[in-house]
């Protein structure tokens, strides 16, 4: 059993894997510790196909959690939610992490997204500007294999790219093209191709091209979408050791408040201690702050990295509201990847001083799954039912409004009195999407959605309730980044202010959410952390 390693990375998701590979390439010794099991893609695919139709839209239903590594799952209590709104993200504690079931959407932040405080007087500014992160976005796009439009008119953000995307964007389906034209002609809005971590028309990273199974969530059945599970064998070939089914429950400090070891339970509840020189905790924005709080010791009575009292606070997400409406003309969405285009320009503007920005995502999930029940409840049978399913599949559209959210210290993750299978305190989150978001829904997003619905000729638009928001799986803020140790947990390299050899990279470090999915920003920050770690290791 491995009992020490130069670098210890807890978590095998995209952030942990990218850092591990960077360290391995630099010649460092790397041990990766994963709480959950390591499973084959084939197994997930068959889990999914064996689900009853009603369970298929649930992104986690194909990933039953191990007893020792619980994650949000239908019928299982793990993450508690308190407060006015329901906090209900999905994430997966499996080797490979939650990129198993991400859509692959890879929007970059804009320069403005990183300066909310100085530009609009709300939220926080980032510890660095866009020019600083830009090269790491380029590295991310190459590492993950992100396809995106070559035409600047279709690119987001609207600015000259310093490097092109490594692959052209995936073609828009017939329905997406039609939607794009209608948005342009009737509303003057740009519905642009989504940059996404998916092999577009060619193999990349020794993985095959996308063949349009329209199954990106919950799992790409061919590995054309990047997920961290695709990189684990390669990391091992480069020398990494990966321990699965090993739940780190305590990070141990030593002299100078440096980290000296992590402790984990194996699946038999036996505890093990592993020492190291450099520590990366990349367990996602819920499990990382949870572990910091669980690791409280005499030196750090409020939990590790928590001298600022910000660990677990500022929890953020992209609260979302969905609109489904029926058109007269057929759109036939569902060819290609599940998210392939969207309207990003509604996410920028001086209005951000007053209310949240919003991004409209045109979902491209094949519609038949969602409308089948609706068609059956119409009372039609036989051929009439078939025709109704066909009609609704062709003419129903699903557009999702995804809001940005401000860091609020009251949105806080704490340790519950309830314990999990191993006897560890479950995470609990107080959740209030905030007036900034509610105002946007009422004054900005709902009216915009109505105009979109009218433009496509919808006959049954219903505004979203300004009180009801569902949760994205974009977990941000709980180990927030900043230059001031008094008000933030990690520095610009995702290194904790309190522990010189402890990195907490990932969504938790993000200081603003903007509207775009968080993974590529997390990954770019992971590269920044990896560079800092390697230079420290080499300098030592």
């Amino acid at each position, binding site marked *: 059993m491995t009992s020490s390693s130069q670098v210890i990375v807890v978590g095998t998701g995209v952030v942990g894997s990218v850092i591990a590979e960077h360290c391995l390439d630099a010649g460092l010794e790397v041990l990766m510790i994963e709480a959950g099991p390591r499973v*084959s*893609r*084939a*197994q997930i*695919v*068959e*889990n999914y*196909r*064996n689900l*009853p139709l009603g369970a298929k839209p649930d992104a986690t239903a194909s990933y039953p959690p191990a007893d020792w590594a619980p994650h949000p799952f239908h019928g299982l209590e793990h993450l508690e939610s308190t407060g006015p709104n329901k906090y209900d993200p999905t994430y997966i504690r499996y080797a490979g992490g939650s990129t198993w079931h991400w859509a692959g959407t890879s929007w970059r932040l804009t320069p403005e997204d990183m300066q909310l405080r100085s530009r609009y007087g709300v939220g926080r500014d980032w510890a660095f500007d866009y020019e600083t992160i830009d090269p790491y976005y380029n590295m991310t796009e190459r590492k993950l294999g992100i396809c995106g439009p070559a035409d600047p008119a279709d690119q987001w953000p609207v600015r000259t790219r310093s490097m092109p995307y490594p692959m052209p964007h995936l073609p828009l389906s017939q329905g997406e093209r039609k939607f794009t034209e209608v948005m342009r002609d009737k509303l003057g809005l740009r519905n642009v191709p989504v940059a996404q971590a998916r092999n577009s*028309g*060619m*193999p990349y*990273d*020794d*993985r*095959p*091209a996308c*063949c349009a*199974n329209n*199954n990106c969530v919950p799992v790409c*059945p*061919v*590995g054309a979408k990047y997920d961290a599970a*695709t990189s684990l*064998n*390669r990391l*091992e*070939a480069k020398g990494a050791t990966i321990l699965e089914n090993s739940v780190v429950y305590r990070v141990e400090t030593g002299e100078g408040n440096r980290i000296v070891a992590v402790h984990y339970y194996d699946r038999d509840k036996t505890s093990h201690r592993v020492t190291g020189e450099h520590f990366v905790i990349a367990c996602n924005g819920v499990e990382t702050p949870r572990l910091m709080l669980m690791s409280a010791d005499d030196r750090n009575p409020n939990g590790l990295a928590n001298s600022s009292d910000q660990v677990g606070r500022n929890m953020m997400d992209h609260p979302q509201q969905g609109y489904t409406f029926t058109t007269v003309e057929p759109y036939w969405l569902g060819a290609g990847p599940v998210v392939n285009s969207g309207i990003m320009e509604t996410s920028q503007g001086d209005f951000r001083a007053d209310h949240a920005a919003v991004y409209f995502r045109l979902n491209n999930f094949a519609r038949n799954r969602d409308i089948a029940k609706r068609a059956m409840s119409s009372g039609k049978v036989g051929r009439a039912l078939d025709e109704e399913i066909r009609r609704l599949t062709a003419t129903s559209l699903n557009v999702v409004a995804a809001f940005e959210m401000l860091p609020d210290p009251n949105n806080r993750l704490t340790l519950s009195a309830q314990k999990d299978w191993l006897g560890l305190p479950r995470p609990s989150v107080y959740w209030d999407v905030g007036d900034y978001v509610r105002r946007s829904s009422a004054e900005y997003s709902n009216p915009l959605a109505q105009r979109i619905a009218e433009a496509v000729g919808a006959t049954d638009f219903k505004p979203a309730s300004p009180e009801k928001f569902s949760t994205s799986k974009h977990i941000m803020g709980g180990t927030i980044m900043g230059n001031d140790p008094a008000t933030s947990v990690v520095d610009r390299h995702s290194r904790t202010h309190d522990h010189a050899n402890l990195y907490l990279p990932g969504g938790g470090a993000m200081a603003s959410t903007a509207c775009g999915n968080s993974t590529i920003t997390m990954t770019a920050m992971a590269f920044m952390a990896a560079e800092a770690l390697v230079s420290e290791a080499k300098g030592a």
Partner: protein
Amino acid sequence: MTMKTALAFFALSASMAAAQTFPDDLVERGRYVATASDCVACHTGPEDKPFGGNHRIASPVGDIWAGNITPSTTHGIGNYTEQQFADAVRRGIRADGANLYPAMPYTAFAKITDEDIHALYAYFMQGVAPIDEPSQQTTLEFPFNLRFSMIGWNLMFRDTAVHRDDPAKSAEWNRGAYLAEGPGHCSTCHTPRGMLMQEDGSLHLAGAQVGPWFAPNITSDKDAGIGSWQKDEIVAYLATGRAEGKSQAGGSMAEAVSHSFSKLTKDDLGAIATYIMDVPAIGGPARFGQGEAGNLTASFRGIESPDLSDPGKGAQIYSANCASCHGYDGQGTQDQYYPSLFHNSDTSGAGVNNFVAAVLNGVDRKTEEGHVFMPPFGTQPNAFNSLDDGQIALLANYAVAQFGDGQMTVAAEDVAMIRAGGPTSNMVRNVRILMAAAGVLVLIGTVVFLRRRKTA
């Protein structure tokens, strides 16, 4: 450039080796000959170092490392005279007099004309960037480490005759015969070998196992060979690596298509097709046209536990690993980028080795049509899923029964053999026979050597 000036260069080159300047059009012609000969496939290890050697060739007698054939004067062939170069390519003899192993297909290259050798030399001296790095040395076990043991083998099996046109045949046929039997060295893989690893001329192009892959029968037999193919199908296959609804190139044929055939002129591909269609038929089991679309999904979906480690799960292993591209019923895509598994030579009983090899090793080929890539299912870092021998056997048996002719069953041991690089039983047998024969060869070689010294 006229033949006279070419010959003048030829004469000059004998004494001046690498120092000379060849005209660009000659170098370009040499590049084409090198492409037709697919030198790059074996002589390139790391992709960014073309012709730098360091490419491992698994042979029944051990790993043979293809050498650095760049014009490096320290580690390549930069000091070769044209005569030394010609002897290496057509006779299998290095400049230092040592024998090459017949992994270098000099028995086929012997047919390359003087003009083409000259162009090839010009290309390698001037059109290839020198790489001043050593290639891995080949170290075979005794007695194969004694390179002079090949002298006897050459005496018995090497035909040094350069290609001559058959006046009874068309110019196109002759061009095809030259390309297929000379530079293209089809027989190197497609002709079965005898006890001493020599090509068995009586079974010319009748198909042979080469490592994990079976290089199939490409004679004009209608069932076992490719006699049922139209000329344009053969041309399309060579250009793109696939003949729709029939066959796809994998393994070293995928390399040959990517590096060589796809870059030849359509006229030359047509010539090769014309010649190949005229190769005398040699019969065997049928390879095409069998099977139909179908699936057994209803037998397990929603009923059984999807634990894929359970035995008897061929259909579900197919569903989990293959169906997302090849279709739940094996029909592939309309454009056949993802080929159908019925009417496919790999699911005929005769071709099932290649089904297993494709699953284990994946498929990788680049042509003007794009990059065809099927991920491997072995233990590679990028394996889609590491299937074990038993699972692949279940899968192969499902595929052959469901989509093929059901003529063959695959056992886990068969998969293990292909995983190990080829049918071990044959290999061991051949090596043992070769070991015994080697003693005789050395003897013959020594006798010949002594005789030559006497007469010298």
